[in-house]
């Protein structure tokens, strides 16, 4: 049942080009991070079958969902990919219960059985007593829980979570995150988490992918991205500063400034000639003249 995702997504529209090769193992959670307009939501649309690819392919195990060259295109209704949309996108005219039951009813399950299962799922996301409410009378966090139950009830082969936390306040974020952690653990297929919040990505994902301007800038674990951010955006994500200059030994030249890399750095001898990550810019500035006591950290960057 559980099969990995293998895809290459190429789409070109209005001067924007998305070109991403994305593979996710069964049971693996990959977080896709990127600034607004990087193409994150387009990736969701492509994988879900809502926007056709211009080139490339999408395969789940041995099922070909889309192959632009071969002209294969499986519609969104037949892909069995569960999507938890940004802001939930619950049907406003249906109750929480009917929203969750929607996927089963669409697959022609009898109403009574669909409702019974939906009620079970609402219990599982701690919303049992609110099953009769319409989305307009649920809080943001409650709506996202309904959206999660609605996506999972159809037993999809892959799960896409598009910015599940973006509309929530801090306390409902924590609640939803715990719930997601529980349910993701029980979900066997590949999972893709779209977010621009590094904390959520670090906490929920096994692997991070940074997307900028339609292409992958960096891929790896949270630590790898923190130590060796490949772009200013990736550095911002990890809370470090990216200083780009020319390195020679432990001296980094940035414009007119010469910086000495701290001796406690894990591998100062391997300072990459073009880019390094620095923390605490204020201290960096203050210590410029006595650079040998600079508190900065740096590291070699991954090859591009």
């Amino acid at each position, binding site marked *: 049942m559980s099969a990995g995702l293998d895809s290459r997504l190429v789409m070109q529209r*209005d001067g924007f080009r998305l070109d991403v090769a994305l593979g996710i193992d069964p049971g693996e959670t990959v977080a896709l991070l990127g600034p*607004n307009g990087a193409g994150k939501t387009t990736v969701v649309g492509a994988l879900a079958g809502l926007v056709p690819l211009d080139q490339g392919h999408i395969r789940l195990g041995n099922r070909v969902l889309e192959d632009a060259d071969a002209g294969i295109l499986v519609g969104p209704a037949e892909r069995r990919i569960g999507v938890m949309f940004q802001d939930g*996108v619950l*049907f*406003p005219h249906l109750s929480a219960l009917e929203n969750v039951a929607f996927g089963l009813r669409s697959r022609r399950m009898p109403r009574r059985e669909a409702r019974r299962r939906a009620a079970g799922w609402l219990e599982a996301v701690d919303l049992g007593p609110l099953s009769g409410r319409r989305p307009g009378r649920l809080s943001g966090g409650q709506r996202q829980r309904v959206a999660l139950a609605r996506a999972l009830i159809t037993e999809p082969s892959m799960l896409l979570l598009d910015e599940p936390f973006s509309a929530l306040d801090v306390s409902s974020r924590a609640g939803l995150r715990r719930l997601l952690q529980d349910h993701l653990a029980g979900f066997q297929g590949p999972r893709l988490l779209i977010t621009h919040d590094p904390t959520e990505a670090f906490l929920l994902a096994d692997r991070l992918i940074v997307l900028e301007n339609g292409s992958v800038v960096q891929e790896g674990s949270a630590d790898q991205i923190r130590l060796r951010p490949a772009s200013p955006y990736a550095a911002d994500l990890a809370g470090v500063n990216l200083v780009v200059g020319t390195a020679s030994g432990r001296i980094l030249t940035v414009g007119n400034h010469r910086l000495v890399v701290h001796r406690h750095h894990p591998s100062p001898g391997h300072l990459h000639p073009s880019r390094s990550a620095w923390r605490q810019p204020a201290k960096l500035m203050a210590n410029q003249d006595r650079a040998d006591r600079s508190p900065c950290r740096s590291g070699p960057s991954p090859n591009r």
Partner: protein
Amino acid sequence: MTEYHEDSIRNPSRRSGGRSRTVRRPRRPPAFIAIPAAIGLALFALPVLGLLGRAPWRRLATLLGSDLAQEALRLSAISSVGAAIISLLLGVPVAWMLCRYDFPGRSLVRGLVLLPMVLPPVVGGAALLFALGRRGLVGSPLYEATGLVLPFSTGGVILAGVFVAMPLMVLTVEGGLRSLDHRFERAAETLGAGRWTVLRRVTIPMIAPSIVAGIALTWSRALGEFGATLTFAGNLQGRTQTLPLAVFVALESDRDTALALSLVMVIVSLAVLVALRDRWWRSR
């Protein structure tokens, strides 16, 4: 990407959010609003009041029981409801095409659809006659093939009603479709719903207020239709003489009957519009 771009996606739809809108309303409208508004309201209210004041209340039952009145009432009920149903069945697909598909000449088609709204109804009726009359462009082969004659028949009354009223259906439904967030239909698709299920369980229920408003508007427009009906279908008592035509005829000869029939139209139309407003429009 044009349709599924993050910026358009990020805007939460009016419908999806349950957050309360805080509208601050000043206690009293300023004079430069209140005075013209009062004059405007008076323009709406005075004719109705005039009608109510002059209405022959005691003889109402007898007047409405006359053959002329009975036949006009029956004909108007049939033709206005018929026109509203046909406008629904044809107007919703037209609105759908205009809203969802990009095809060459779309702006021309939209202009064509809205033309009956700005055209004098008499001209519309004449145009219908040239097209669908027994010697008309389409009417002639239609007659040859089926023996069907639309002008000066009840069918012609309905057709004239559809012609003048359907633009209102197209306009309201297209507006509803346009303001519907595409993501609801997409979410339904990812949940395994085919096109028909999406239409039946998501799109139609979500644009239902627009559809109901469209029905109300087309029905009342068809009920009040005069010019196109007279030109295309004529003024035959019992066949094509609807309420407005009967009122017009009665004004010459039997003023009290005209008043009684007018009263019926005012009350019925007002009742429907007020009821719909409570049920659908206020809740939006």
